[in-house]
């Protein structure tokens, strides 16, 4: 990234931070703040840490003057947030954060940015369902944030949660990721598979998954159902046929349970499959950490130029990141493309190739921030529009 590009990005960020749009987290005076600036080292991340602000005005003045590329605050609250040694800060508690990131989600070759964000959004939806249904939180208890990059953050600040240590937070993580769920134990505890009564939410989820699994098989034609079942561990072709026969007698799995046709190994393998589909793929260390730095909602993400967007649950439902998190204008900017790329911003898919080209400002900022383009100049003609 050359100096001209940095200066341009910085000036755009300054414009954004000039207007008072910044939302602050609760207890912001007790938090440590950290910034990455558009300095000579950038895009290498040099973190300026251990800052503290005593008023919203001070923070806003700082942001307006410096226009950082990245703005973070500590999830922890400290008695002395600006102390430079961690042990001197005196930890008093911390928000609990769930980080859903495309990197943790997709193992196959990367699809488009838009599809990737959609996948992370679906995963976030799964998380929210766990938090409400299993943990008993209310939709009003958490704030959902589009990170401006490759995913979503969910912040929880419920009173009983904030004093939990790292170890206790890991139990929450293990719950969400299904770590420690043993099919053997589940089967032993509840005789074949969970039955209604005194069940954990995981047991109910697994039971529901299994019901759906057989419902889907019932809807297939017999031949296909047999093929699919025969692929499950410890079920041969003949056994599969018997199971399909019994299964089709009823709309529940009760006859199947009574018949004991399914070998234990097959149940275990189905339960394992259920767990891997139900579990939430969160970034584990983030949630377990009691002293994490997290991106400030309402700030700008220096790696994309998108707004780190706080969302209510309703807003989240209809949120379109590549539309709603875009803050820059449509007017034209001239850039030099370094690498061929595709940008899908505000419903428009733009393919760019090496060389100089004209782009809407938001797309130009995005490509520059990603290191895929350098700044050339602003087109005066389109400016007057």
């Amino acid at each position, binding site marked *: 990234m050359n100096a001209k590009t940095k200066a341009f990005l910085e000036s755009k960020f300054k414009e954004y931070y000039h207007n008072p749009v910044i939302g602050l987290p609760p207890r912001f005076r007790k938090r440590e703040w950290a910034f990455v600036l558009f300095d000579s080292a950038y895009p290498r991340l040099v973190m300026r840490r251990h800052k503290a602000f005593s008023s919203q005005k001070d923070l806003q003045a700082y942001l307006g003057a410096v226009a950082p590329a990245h703005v973070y605050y500590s999830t922890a609250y400290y008695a002395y947030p600006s102390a430079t040694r961690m042990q001197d800060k005196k930890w008093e508690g911390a928000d609990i954060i769930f980080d859903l990131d495309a990197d943790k989600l997709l193992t196959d070759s990367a699809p488009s940015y838009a599809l990737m964000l959609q996948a992370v959004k679906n995963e976030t939806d799964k998380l929210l369902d766990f938090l409400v*249904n*299993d*943990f*008993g*939180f209310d939709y009003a208890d958490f704030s959902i944030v589009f990170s401006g990059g490759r995913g979503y953050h969910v912040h929880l600040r419920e009173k*009983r*949660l904030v004093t*939990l240590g790292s*170890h*206790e937070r*890991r*139990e*929450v*993580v*293990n*719950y969400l990721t*299904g*770590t*420690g*769920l*043993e099919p053997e*134990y*589940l089967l032993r*505890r509840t005789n074949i598979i969970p039955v209604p009564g*005194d*069940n*954990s*939410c*995981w047991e109910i989820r697994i039971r529901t998954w299994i019901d759906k699994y057989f419902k889907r098989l019932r809807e297939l034609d017999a031949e296909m159902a047999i093929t699919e079942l025969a692929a499950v561990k410890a079920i041969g072709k003949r056994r599969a046929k018997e199971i399909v026969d019994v299964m089709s007698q009823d709309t529940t799995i009760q006859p199947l349970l009574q018949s004991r046709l399914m070998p234990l190994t097959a149940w275990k393998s189905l339960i394992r499959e259920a767990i891997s589909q139900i579990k939430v793929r969160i970034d*584990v*260390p983030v949630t*377990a950490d009691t002293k994490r730095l997290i991106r400030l909602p309402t700030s700008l993400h220096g790696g994309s130029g998108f707004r780190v967007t706080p969302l209510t649950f309703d807003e989240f439902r209809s949120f379109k990141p590549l539309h709603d998190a875009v803050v820059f204008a449509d007017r034209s900017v001239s850039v030099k493309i370094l690498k061929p790329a595709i940008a899908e911003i505000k419903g428009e898919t733009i393919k760019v190739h090496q060389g100089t080209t004209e782009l809407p400002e938001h797309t130009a900022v995005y490509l520059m921030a990603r290191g895929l383009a350098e700044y050339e100049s602003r087109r005066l003609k389109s400016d007057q529009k």
Partner: protein
Amino acid sequence: MEEYLALFPYTSAAARYVEASTRTFESFLTVGEFSKLILNRSVERVTRAISGDTPASLIERDDYEVEIFSYVMARALVSCINETLLIQRYANAEAQDAFDNLRHADEPSRDEYIMSLLEDFRMPVSVENDAFRLHFTDFVKYTGRLRGPQWRLVNLLNRGSVTLAKGEIIQILAEAVRLKVLSGLPLKLSGKMCEELSPYTSPLKEAFSQVSSHLVDSGPVVLEACPPCIKALLSQVKAGRNLSHPARFALTSFLANVGMKADEIVRIYETSPDFDYDLTRYQVEHIRGASGKDYIAPGCSTMETYGNCVESDGLCKRVIHPLSYYRVRNKRHEGVQRNPREGPV
């Protein structure tokens, strides 16, 4: 009420009793029948923590105050001795007593004690047919050291709470007691105070150093005594695979903790494809405490969270820390049986 305070002298209710009393800390150091009783009992409390024996003495009605004040004095004794391991053992011993007291109480008193303790520790519950519903945040606070699937949130959570049987609630209360006793220890006491207590602390210190000398790892590292998780990491390294950061930390700190020298540890990593001598040396030295702080290897639950707990065996189920596993196995090698619950926490 006094009986409750005597049985559970670390409760806030007992603290209020002590505060309201006219007896002072200093008065126990003066000669007198009552202070002698207090001091003897407090020494007994600490002795029991050192030896691990169960207490023989049953409380007499007249002894309620002795119980309450000897707890206060025992805290002073362990604070003056100021050994982390002793403080932990002391808290364990008080927790064990709490557990036994609850188990051995008659049904009506037990129920009363349980409800009082839950209230004292601010753990709201709803009870129905001897099933206790507890908020998950309270549950995870007190079950970190308990092993077995019946203590994992993943097997229990339902709409923000977990349902527990009375016996399980008693185990949770014992853990709450342990943490309550630990909190605030060591007390910041004046040198003069500790000096005056030295006739009592000196023999205790002596007894403790005899016991604890067995706990220090010495001698060559016995790889066969390593738990399955560590063995798995070792064989991955040997097979030339790169370890994730948490895995590398776990392996290095474990080996350092059981007494392997930095050079030997570095040599283990030589087969890694991303081996960098200086970097590895630096990391190993750093974990080994060159920066002035010794890192303790991660416990079983951390290993589990990061997917590094593999092929756990029977002994794994009884320990909460890979180092405890090693110590038990290692002692077995030497033909000495030891309590598997011991180990860093």
